[in-house]
């Protein structure tokens, strides 16, 4: 946090406001429960915390495994300088996912239960184990930075020896975890919209995680540049851009094939809420960046790389939210929009991520370089001279995809009401109960024994107390004519209780029916 406090006023203020709101929402969440703090309901049990904090958080942490595999397994040493920041991001990402889970779980103090209570048939069980194991692996991969700072020789040497097995374990776990987040939705074929539901969901999640991991690495580098004036490894990042193009191309081909194979391709072009959101997602995250990054001039340009990576990141955030929220809305029958408490907690978690990253960079040996860029800043500041170099090309192309996607999403919103309303409604009409009435098997008469000072025993006849046109047991069978007790054996409470307004007297009040206090022999028959 220190760095953010020392940073010029504006972001410090924003950070404090977000933190304040988040802390207040935390109190609301843990004193009022989920109902008081979220817009979730029985019909929509998973909202922003799962859709964004968990699904996107994990996906955005994918750079960690992608790059460590490249460097340690494939021994492509060039990428080593950017391994550390990505491992740090992944580690922080997973820690924050766990924080988000603590908010989202109904009983967060039982988060350890999957350790001892196993259900290998559950995807969620796999997810839980992946989160736990991979966070541990990431902690170990991250710990050299701490040990180094503390100058602890022995653990460093041990970890050094363990590096390759750890990385292999990490890659396996990540692969499982990224894909299993997709598998989570395999079990709702009748709820998730066909544009997103697919037996290939785990594969889609995995491939997109690779693209997203690379894009996040690029994006992070720019953020680090922005915050710390850390030198940009443009050549390395451009190579990551190539990887993104390949991953996105594979994704696109598989996606189209899958949609066509399931006969859902046409649905993508119908004027519905889901279709427009789907097109927006594909434009933003797949088609746009693929075209941008395949142009060499754009790929090797600061601003071009930044815009392309941003498109991928935004596109796949949209994808995860579409799977978890947009695609589920219609079948749920309700409209979900997160409450401000959900939003502020999410903001707080993201802000904490930035702050922790800043702290780590400040106190731990994260970046390999001491040099700082002195050349004019890339990214946003380049906008000051938009007519220079590749910038106009990037601006035009990026702008087209950006505005196009937003326009599609907006048009989707216009279709939203209609699309959600088109889900089959159940009409209510006056039921035909003729057959039921024929079979109506009236419960037996109940004889109450003669009490003290009573005129005689009372026999209650169900038959004479039923509206034969519309039998309704609940008129009487609420408190205290407990339906199950009566059916067992007749209770014999004190006589006067039966006459009052809560029992027989309720209807036998002289108005609805004859009065229980006047016409004794109507019931008491000696």
């Amino acid at each position, binding site marked *: 946090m220190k760095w953010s406090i020392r940073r010029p006023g504006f972001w410090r203020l924003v950070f404090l406001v977000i933190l304040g709101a988040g802390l207040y929402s935390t109190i609301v969440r843990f*004193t009022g429960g989920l109902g008081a703090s979220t817009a979730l309901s029985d019909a929509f049990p998973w909202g922003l915390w799962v859709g964004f904090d968990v699904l996107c958080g994990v996906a955005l942490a994918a750079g960690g495994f992608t790059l460590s595999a490249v460097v340690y397994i494939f*021994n492509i040493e060039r990428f080593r300088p950017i391994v550390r920041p990505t491992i740090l991001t992944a580690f922080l990402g997973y820690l924050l996912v766990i924080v988000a889970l603590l908010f989202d779980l109904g*009983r967060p103090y039982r988060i350890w239960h999957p350790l001892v*209570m196993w259900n290998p048939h559950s995807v969620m*069980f796999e997810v839980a184990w992946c989160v736990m194991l991979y966070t541990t692996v990431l902690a170990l991969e991250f710990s050299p930075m701490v040990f180094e700072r503390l100058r602890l020789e022995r653990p460093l040497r041990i970890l050094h020896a363990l590096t390759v097995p750890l990385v292999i374990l990490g890659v396996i776990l990540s*692969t*499982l975890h990224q894909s299993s987040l997709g598998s989570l939705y395999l*079990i709702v074929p009748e709820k998730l919209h066909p544009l997103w539901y697919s037996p290939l969901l785990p594969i889609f999640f995995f491939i997109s995680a690779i693209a997203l991991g690379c894009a996040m690495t690029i994006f992070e580098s720019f953020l680090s540049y922005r915050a710390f004036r850390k030198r940009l490894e443009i050549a390395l990042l451009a190579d990551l851009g190539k990887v993104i193009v390949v991953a996105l191309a594979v994704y696109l081909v598989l996606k189209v094939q899958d949609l066509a194979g399931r006969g859902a391709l046409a649905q993508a072009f119908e004027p519905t809420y889901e279709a427009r959101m789907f097109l927006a997602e594909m434009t933003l995250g797949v088609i746009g960046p693929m075209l941008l990054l395949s142009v060499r001039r754009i790929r090797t340009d600061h601003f071009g790389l930044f815009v392309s990576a941003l498109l991928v990141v935004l596109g796949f955030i949209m994808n995860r939210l579409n799977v978890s929220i947009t695609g589920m809305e219609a079948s749920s029958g309700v409209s979900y929009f997160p409450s401000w408490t959900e939003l502020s907690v999410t903001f707080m978690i993201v802000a904490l991520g930035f702050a922790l990253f800043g702290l780590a960079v400040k106190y731990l040996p994260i970046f390999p370089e001491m040099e700082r860029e002195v050349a004019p800043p890339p990214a946003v500041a380049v906008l000051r001279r938009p007519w220079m170099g590749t910038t106009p090309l990037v601006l035009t192309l990026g702008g087209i995809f950006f505005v196009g996607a937003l326009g599609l999403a907006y048009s989707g919103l216009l279709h939203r009401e209609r699309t959600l309303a088109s889900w089959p409604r159940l009409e209510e009409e006056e039921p035909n*109960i003729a057959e039921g009435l024929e079979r109506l098997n009236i419960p037996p008469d109940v004889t109450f024994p003669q009490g003290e000072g009573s005129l005689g025993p009372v026999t209650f006849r169900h038959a004479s107390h039923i509206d034969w046109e519309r039998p309704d047991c609940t008129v009487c069978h609420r408190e205290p004519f407990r*339906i199950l007790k009566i059916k067992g054996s007749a209770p014999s409470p004190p006589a006067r209780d039966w006459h009052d307004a809560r029992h027989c007297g309720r209807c036998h009040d002289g108005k609805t029916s004859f009065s229980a206090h006047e016409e004794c022999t109507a019931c008491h028959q000696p």
Partner: protein
Amino acid sequence: MVSQKGLLFDATLCIGCGACYEACKERNRLPTTATHFLEDRLSDQTYTVVKKRGGRFVRQLCMHCEVPTCASVCPVGALEKTAPGPVIYHEERCIGCRYCMLACPFGIPKYEWRKILPRVRKCDLCADRLAAGRPTACAEVCPTGATKFGDRQELIEEARARLRAHPQKYVPRIYGLEEVGGTSVLLLSDVPFERLGYRTDLLREPLPLLTWQVLQKIPNFVIVGSVLLGGIWWITNRRQEVQRREREERDRRRSFEESSRDLPEPPGSSSTSDLMDSP
């Protein structure tokens, strides 16, 4: 082996009296949640409702699937299909991830949103009464036999008999016989089930198969993946090792040639060389 119990609900017989609703509330000690039972919805305080739909009264309750999606998705096994039929909930295991609610094809599990320590709530087919050899509360109080309790097999026979006896009346289908692999609660109706609010587009096989097809590959994937990655590492690492060796070898050969040809004179002839020859 314990025979599997179940319920058969016949929409043609239901007169919408609400006895089942009231009995369920009473048996589960649930508070009143609506002014009239027909207006109530399933919630953490209502495990069954009677709805007026498509010109019939129809009940809604946990279907107690043969291969329950909820039990399969629960990471801690808090939901369990018991041998006599009921899908029951182990409150003390539940972590509150609500995956069961998301996954249930019938939208049955409900959550105690208002509580600090919430639980999942749903019909448990009166598991305690079943264990005592009694029918469920709802079946016991039903005055028309619309909700009938019995062995699932016998109920299926009964339902088939009714379909045979009145082929022109009923929709020729026992809902719950095959839906998502079969359910312990079976439905008969004379109006299409969709109109009663029961989805007819559900898969015929159990939904857990969809995820199991993926999950069962994990052990293999872990082993093959680790070996594969280890192998790749071994190859790339070995290649680097070989390159390094070759380089060293070359260096050594060169320095040998150098020492034998180029610079025959011993070092130390220069004035400062002693500075560098510390032991």
